[in-house]
């Protein structure tokens, strides 16, 4: 999949491709253009330039063909909470042309995927925010889409529920072989992705696997506190390690810090008191490419999604 956009301020010249079966994360702060990109890929907003194809169909010229092959989970809830979970799914099955003979089986399957079988006949109004979100993910999978789009699937959920949602997502990828495209501004979540793109001010600033990106900004560092730092430093340097001497510790730069720990201890030749391996985080990556930290920008995100959705509509 390739796409280029010429003019829109929201998304400038974004180009990327996703492999079948990948979990691909779009990481960036609010207003970076994540949702706009998703909307264009889902044929909800027409690109003002360039082109994109999803599951082999052009988003501008064959929007319905695209929509039949994608599942969508929006930031704001889109369930009918006066219907039961099953009624919501049944409605969706018809709208997405799931053959009548398969509806029953698919509903059972997607409810199992998100562990909500026992809630099948409950009204959605009795669901917690996390359960509703997981039901929406199940609904997005009901018509066996080739690509599942999740726009900020975990926003406003507590950490435990976020973990559950991620379990669901990874299980989907494993059991349904679906390609998953998701947006997030949580660094720790982007780590779960096979590959990710960092987007800022409507432009992709970096693309790659989490490890690749982290390697681009620097190597691992291993902090050592030993019984005799100068002696250890001398031996390590003699063995070819790059290091920096701190006041009461040594910092060794290495490609794969964790794997190196045993050799470092052996080479140091003195008693090692503490070892601290630091890998660059995606936060370091974001900082490296944008000069800012993503965490600073999300104070208002603490509100639950429904409240935010309402606020957005009231504006």
């Amino acid at each position, binding site marked *: 999949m390739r796409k280029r956009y010429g003019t829109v301020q929201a998304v400038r010249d974004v180009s990327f491709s996703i492999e079948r079966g990948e979990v691909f994360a779009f990481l960036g702060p609010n207003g970076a253009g994540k949702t706009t990109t998703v909307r264009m890929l889902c044929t*909800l907003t027409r690109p003002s330039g360039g082109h994109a194809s999803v599951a082999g169909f052009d988003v501008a010229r064959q929007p319905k*063909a695209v929509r039949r092959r994608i599942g969508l989970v929006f930031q704001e*809830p889109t369930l*009918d909470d006066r219907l039961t979970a099953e009624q919501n799914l049944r*409605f969706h099955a018809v*709208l997405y042309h799931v053959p009548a003979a398969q509806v029953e089986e698919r509903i059972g399957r997607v409810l199992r995927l998100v562990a909500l079988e026992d809630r099948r006949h409950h009204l959605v109004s009795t669901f917690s925010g996390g359960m509703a979100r997981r039901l929406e993910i199940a609904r997005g999978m009901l018509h066996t889409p080739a*690509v599942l789009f999740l726009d900020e699937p975990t926003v406003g959920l507590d950490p435990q529920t976020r973990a559950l949602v991620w379990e669901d997502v990874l299980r989907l990828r494993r059991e349904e072989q679906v390609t998953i495209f998701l947006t997030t501004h949580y660094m720790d979540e982007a780590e779960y992705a096979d590959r990710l793109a960092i987007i800022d001010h409507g432009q992709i600033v970096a693309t790659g696997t989490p490890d690749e990106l982290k390697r681009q900004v620097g190597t691992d560092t291993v902090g050592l506190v030993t019984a005799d730092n100068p002696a250890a430093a001398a031996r390590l340097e003699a063995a070819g390690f790059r290091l920096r001497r701190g006041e009461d510790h040594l910092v060794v730069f290495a490609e794969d810090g964790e794997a190196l720990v045993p050799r470092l201890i052996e080479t140091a030749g003195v008693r090692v008191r503490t070892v601290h391996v630091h890998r660059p985080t995606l936060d370091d990556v974001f900082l490296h490419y944008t000069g800012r930290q993503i965490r600073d920008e999300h104070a208002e995100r603490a509100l639950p999604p429904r409240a935010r959705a309402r606020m957005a509509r009231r504006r």
Partner: protein
Amino acid sequence: MSATALDLPGRPLADERESLAEELRTVGMVWEREAIRFFRTRARVLSSFVQPILFLFVLGYGMSTLVGSTAGFDFKKFLFPGIVAMTVMSTALSSAISIVWDREFGFLREMLVAPVSRTALVAGKTLGGASIAAVQGTIMLALAPLIGVHLTPLVVIEVIGMELLMAVSLTAFGVFVASHIRRMEGFSVVMQLLLFPMLFLSGALFPLSGLPGWLTVLTRINPLTYAVAPLRSVVFAAQHMPPAAAAKFTSSVTLFGHTLSNAACIGITCAFAVAFATLAVAGFGQPD
């Protein structure tokens, strides 16, 4: 996924159209949802009967003493078909609130992004609301014996047919209005503003003959007028009405000096229904 935008000219359009069967299935599902939701809110079911019953008994008995009866036919009997029409009308118009509700709670999006036509969605909404309204109107018929109105099975069937037609037209109108309203409160206000003038100017509550000119004009541009008249004349046809009563409590509508037949009224109502449905489809799902 590979970039295939360039090698597609042969196959794109077949996949862009829905088959009729898929469209009908969508209509049925949207219809079913409207029904499930309506009957789940019992308060709404009951409250939609309160006003018509109040009008029928309070206004009916009150006015009967003033108007008096002509050869055994009184105002209550005249009013009865109008009250049935009123029940259909208020239920049909208010059923469109589900669209505002859907927008408020996000479900409208679930429908609009699906690979289905807006026509199918509007048809489902309209038929769903219309069926509910027709059911409500038909339940009102159970009060006929209390008023002394005689009904035969054939009359009931004819009345149900008229109710459905009227309900489709009014629900489509409601859907059209609701598509342009963003807030629930706004919907209630607009519906109250529409409901009472349309009701009072429809002939549901008093005969349309011998009115002052300006009032006659207003009643004749009211779409509901052409639905109430045939509904009433179908009911009246089953009553023993002496000529004096028929002249006083007229059920017919005149337009440009011609008395319209039932068929003509039904034709006009159909035309309104088609027009409103077209407007509803055009207005449905406009972006916020």
